[in-house]
């Protein structure tokens, strides 16, 4: 059980990460891409938390908390920019945005 446990969380993190990659690559909407980024970051946090189990000074957790805070900053600013773009361009679709950007 312990053996299985130790790799289970790692597989979980791997799954989260790869699905985040899939979302980022595939989806066209900017907010969707943000969601994918969230997933990837969470995967990292899971890894950090898992490995902090074996550390008595809990450095991994602390790092994960920092990561969460930074993610929040990043998401808020990304959304603010997105709102800006939307107000200007009236589109939030990535393709159209690119075409608009290319003109």
């Amino acid at each position, binding site marked *: 059980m312990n053996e299985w446990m130790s790799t289970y969380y790692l597989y979980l993190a791997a799954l989260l990460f790869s699905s985040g*990659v899939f979302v*980022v*690559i*595939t989806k066209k909407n900017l907010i969707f891409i943000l969601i994918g980024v969230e997933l990837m970051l969470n995967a990292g946090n899971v890894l950090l938390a898992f490995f902090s189990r074996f550390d008595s000074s809990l450095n991994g957790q602390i790092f994960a908390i920092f990561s969460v805070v930074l993610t929040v900053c990043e998401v808020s600013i990304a959304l603010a920019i997105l709102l800006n773009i939307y107000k200007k361009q009236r589109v939030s679709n*990535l*393709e159209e945005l*690119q075409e608009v950007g*290319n003109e």
Partner: protein
Amino acid sequence: MSELILILIILFLPLLSGLVGFISKYSSIISIVGVSFSFLFSLVLAFDRKVIRFEWLWVEGVVFSIHIDRISSVLIVLVNLISLLVLIYSSRYMEEDNGDKRYFAFLGFFIFSMLGLLMTNHLLLLFVFWELVGLASYLLIGFWYQKESVPASARTSFMINRIADTSLLAGIILLFRDGFDLTIGSEPILWTILPSILIAVGAFGKSAQLPFSGWLLKAMAGPTPVSALIHAATMVAAGVYLLVRVSPFLPQEVLNFIAIIGCLTSCYAAICAIVRHDIKKVLAFSTISQLGYMVLGIGVGAADASLFHLITHAFFKAGLFLGAASVINFMCNAHKNDSRDMRYMGGLTSKLPWTCRSFILCSLALAGLPLFSGFLSKDSILLGAWLFATKTGSWAYIISDLAIFTTLLTAFYVARMVLLVFFGTPRTNLTNYKYRESKRLYFPLVILGVFSLFIFFNLNPLGHSSYLIEYMGFPIQHLEGSIIPFLSILMVISGFVLAFSWFKPGAKYTTTYLKNSQPKSGLGIFALEGFQLGELYRRVGIAIYKLSLAAAYLDRQVIDPMLHFVSIGSVVGSKVLALIERFMVNGPVNLSASILAFLGKRFAGLSARDGQTQIIWLLVMVILILGWFIFF
């Protein structure tokens, strides 16, 4: 150091004064001043009694030097003195001529070259000055180039000289190749025969020995003072000087050869002088004859005698030429047609008194009468020849006897000349013609005439050497052979007697001399044409010309087509190679280029326009790299 400056001044002052004179109006005066300074300095040098030597390294292994020993210093004084006297004479003689600036410039150049020749002791440097002297001679002979036959004469004389110079150069090159030291005055080792003969032949050319004697005759086309300086006293003596310097190195066979040539030349020239009518040509043949004596002296091992004769000959021959110039000048005004022809002269003593006196003095010296310098020097040569004959053996007696016989001939033609020119009734009408000899013309003549006396050379009028020779470093020899002076005096007197009987004033021959255009006897005709030497030259020249034509024909017909074939073949070959290259070299190059272009176009599309594709590619790359690291 001061000696170097002195030497350089002596060397370059004539040249500079000539050049400065060329661009200014007073060319003659500047030249005279320059050369007189040079003369004074050379006197200083001569009295210095030291051997002066300045060396410098020219290329690796070749050291040129200025080397002045007593022989050189005495000869330098001689050259300067005679040049000075000729210049003074020319200042009056060339006064009316338009090109006199050119004349003095060329003369300055000549003096410079001659002095340079005397100052060096390396054969190569001597050859350089040798050529320069020849060039100066050519320039001066062709001075009146507007006249009809003058340029051709100048060219001929230069060319004949050049042929001999080739031989000299060949000799020098052979010596260099064989590793002999080319400086004169070094250890006397005998040279090999071939270079020695070549160098001797080169000297013959300059000194107008057989077979090169034709050029001196052609050289009479130039102004007479030029002949006095160059072709009597200095340049032709350069050959003798070279032989004197080189004679310790020559093997005995070459010396014998030199002696034979000298003897033959002097005899031949004396015979030719007997029948000539042009006074300058007579003097030219006389010069050749006397040079023959000098060369003979070297050949028999009496180099000191040759030098002595060189010095005395310079004085009296220059005097004779300048005197002849005065005569010609006078005749030019009196008889427009042919001022040089002795057939029109006669009875000039009253008209040209000073000229006559110095002319007679110089000609007596030339003939070799005792009490004159010519006797001293010629006698020493004859003595040397006789001693050589006694030493060597049978055939050498011919040389000595011929030399003595030539003395007779010399006296004969000298007396003939003097009698025909100055004595007797004038054959042209001179009564109405007044002429005053200018001081500048007769002052040099007087000096030269005076120097023809014996006093300056030896206190004994019948001796055979001179303190000058002793000064130059040759040992005094008390020679036995008292028969020789006696014989030579005998020869001279008989020559005079013979001439006098034919040419004395009032004799039948002289009065009809005007009508004598051609000598009647066969030998006379032969001698008139210079023993057909000119014809020989012409035939040889034509043969060489035909040979060169044949060679050109061969070149055109045979060698050129071969070259054409080769060149066309190479052009064709190059075109074939170009074709091959186009297919076989350019093809793969183009193929690889197109492959790369194709790949490039493919990969160019990789830079995506949208971010997601870029992320895809990024991740692909990351996977690949990580996979590499994980699995390998």
